[in-house]
């Protein structure tokens, strides 16, 4: 019944929007209502003077669905620009995680050693715990968190991915 099976692709999409009430709900509602995936979504104001916010979405689907997602995003009234970073040349993706690990003795020392290898910062500590701050690609964060699991991992908070195109051109 469905058109020919196409491979599923993952894409990072940047959306520049008017920072007005409900704009995030519009974007999320679009994805929920039409059954599109959201693997990660971040949003923050990037230009207070112009009142612009930037939303970064990681989504997946067939090429046809991805084109639909971009067209549907672009026709939302408060949307200025939609940019498919994955298909428009090289880009940088980063995510930040705060990772809380509790423990004493060897496990505590081991967690600090691994944090050092991963260049994570200690942003809070007591005799019983550390909070590590780490920035990098999502896969690197995954590995770090996995390594912390047997060492007393109790809490993880991640920002989701932000991304920007390489090179001198802006969105």
């Amino acid at each position, binding site marked *: *019944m*469905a*058109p*020919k099976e196409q491979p599923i692709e993952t894409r990072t999409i940047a959306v520049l929007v*008017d920072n007005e*009430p*409900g704009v995030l*709900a*519009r974007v999320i*509602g679009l994805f929920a*209502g039409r059954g599109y995936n959201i693997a990660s979504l971040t949003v923050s104001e990037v230009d207070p003077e112009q009142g612009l916010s930037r939303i970064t979405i990681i989504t997946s689907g067939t090429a*046809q669905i991805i*084109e*639909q997602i971009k*067209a*549907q995003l*672009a*026709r939302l*009234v*408060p*949307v*200025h620009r939609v940019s498919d970073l994955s298909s428009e040349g090289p880009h940088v993706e980063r995510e930040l995680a705060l990772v809380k690990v509790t423990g004493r003795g060897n496990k505590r020392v081991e967690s600090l050693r691994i944090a050092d290898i991963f260049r994570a910062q200690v942003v809070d500590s007591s005799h019983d715990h550390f909070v590590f701050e780490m920035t990098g690609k999502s896969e690197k964060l995954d590995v770090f968190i996995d390594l912390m699991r047997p060492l007393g991992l109790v809490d993880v908070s991640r920002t989701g991915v932000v991304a920007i195109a390489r090179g001198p051109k802006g969105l």
Partner: protein
Amino acid sequence: MAPAQMTGSQMLLKALVDQGVDTIFGYPGGAVLPIYDALHQQNALRHILVRHEQAAVHAAEGYARSTGKVGVVLVTSGPGATNAVTGLTDALMDSIPVVCLTGQVPTHLIGNDAFQEADTTGITRPCTKHNYLVKAVEDLPRIVHEAFYVARSGRPGPVVVDLPKDVLQAKGACYLAPGEVKHRTYRPQVKADRTTIEAAVEMIAKAERPLIYFGGGVINSGDKASRLLTRFARDLGIPCTSTLMGLGAFPASDPLFLGMLGMHGTYEANLAMYHCDVMIAVGARFDDRVTGRLDEFAPHSRKIHIDIDPSSINKNVVVDLPIVADVGRALDALLKVWKARGHKLAPKALKAWWKQIEEWRARDCLKYTQSDGPIKPQYAIQRLYELTKDRNAYITTEVGQHQMWAAQFYKFEKPRHWMTSGGLGTMGYGFPSAVGVQIAHPDALVIDIAGEASFLMNIQELSTVAQYGLPVKVFIINNQWMGMVRQWQELLHGKRYSQTYMASLPDFVRLAEAFGAVGLKATRPDEVDDKIMEMIETPKAVIFDCQVEPEENCFPMIPSGAAHYDMLLGPEDKAVKPVSEEGMVLV
């Protein structure tokens, strides 16, 4: 000169007048009292009091679709807004420009579960093109003008403006005229790209079996787009088929017209679609009612798709050449380039294509036999057409079998004379829509071709019709069933007629009389003509109870999940093939 001090309500009404509004369809309530008070003190705007907020939106849709203007609705907060939701969704699906003004509790009470509070912008976000909550009176004029701009530009649609009561009562000297407001982001692409147009011309020039498939976008683009479409098809000699929403954009009497295509489309239209080698889709969106089974949809064709909405491109069907533009502008450019290049379709191939089409047409797929027995619904609508075709009638419909028969048997020569709920399929659309059409065209003959079940869904509007003395005609194809559901139960669910019989129907003649209208009834074929003439000549509202063969089915029919060549042409075709399991899950 500095603008004068005005209340929010006064600014709102001034903005409406400046936008060219003359009519509002609405229903009052607590949150919109300031607007109704301001309405009472002016004469520029006429308010039509409906009897249910859903009907207000449908009436505004009928008004908009028959005039090309933006329809305007005014309802109160809470239930007023939630009742409007069906109409808003209907307008979204069929791309009808509507601005719906909703009352809201005062800003300091928002979020407190106040009396008649609802999260209107939250509820209507997915069923509007855009919506606004006005939080300060300073924003009000800009937002109202933007709302009209968004509603009518690009692919039209409904826009909600939610108006807290304190904003309506606040004063300010901040009124802006429409010309002072420019939208920050919304700039739909209307002009066609030149190289794409040239590529389309070259593709069409090589066609041997071309077909134009047009939809409601042609009507939304304006009457000029209809004229250009007609000229384009005639100049090239290309057969045309229409979606439900496109009827009237091309004259139905023209031999180039193959009728509507899709689930209840004609044999010739569907087979032409299956066999064409170049398809020119114009302002149509490849709806599932049109395409049937997707992997067997026009499989031998190269496809050109003209649409103003980029998200319509490649949504259901992948096309070879998308043209994102206003339909009228794209057609104008196509015609110019076609002429400049002196192209002509290969006459031999075109002749062979037409010969094939005429063979399909000779199958006469809409034929039926009217005996002395009960009235055939097809006969009733065909007679209605014959007796009203020279009277510039406006036709609305409800949803179901009667709607499909109306689409098949009523021939539209001009755009904006056919109002039907295509995308959402809203039972109860036709009667309030006819109210809106009649308000816009007071002297015109306006007929709602109805089913008895649909008519009952917004029957309260008889009171509106009575209040304004509207001579709306309701032509009920009364088969005492929810006919289309019954048909599916017969063909797909082993004749288990679950909950589709309409027991305890009213006496429609006496019902008409109760509302000061005229009731007519026909039960035999030989009285149909006289009664229709009586209906037309009655200068008042008429409810015509046309009692028809209860178990008549609507053919041709492409069962869900089937391809265009898998049409059932009549009752004798019933047992051709069981519907696939994939087909059964489709609506």
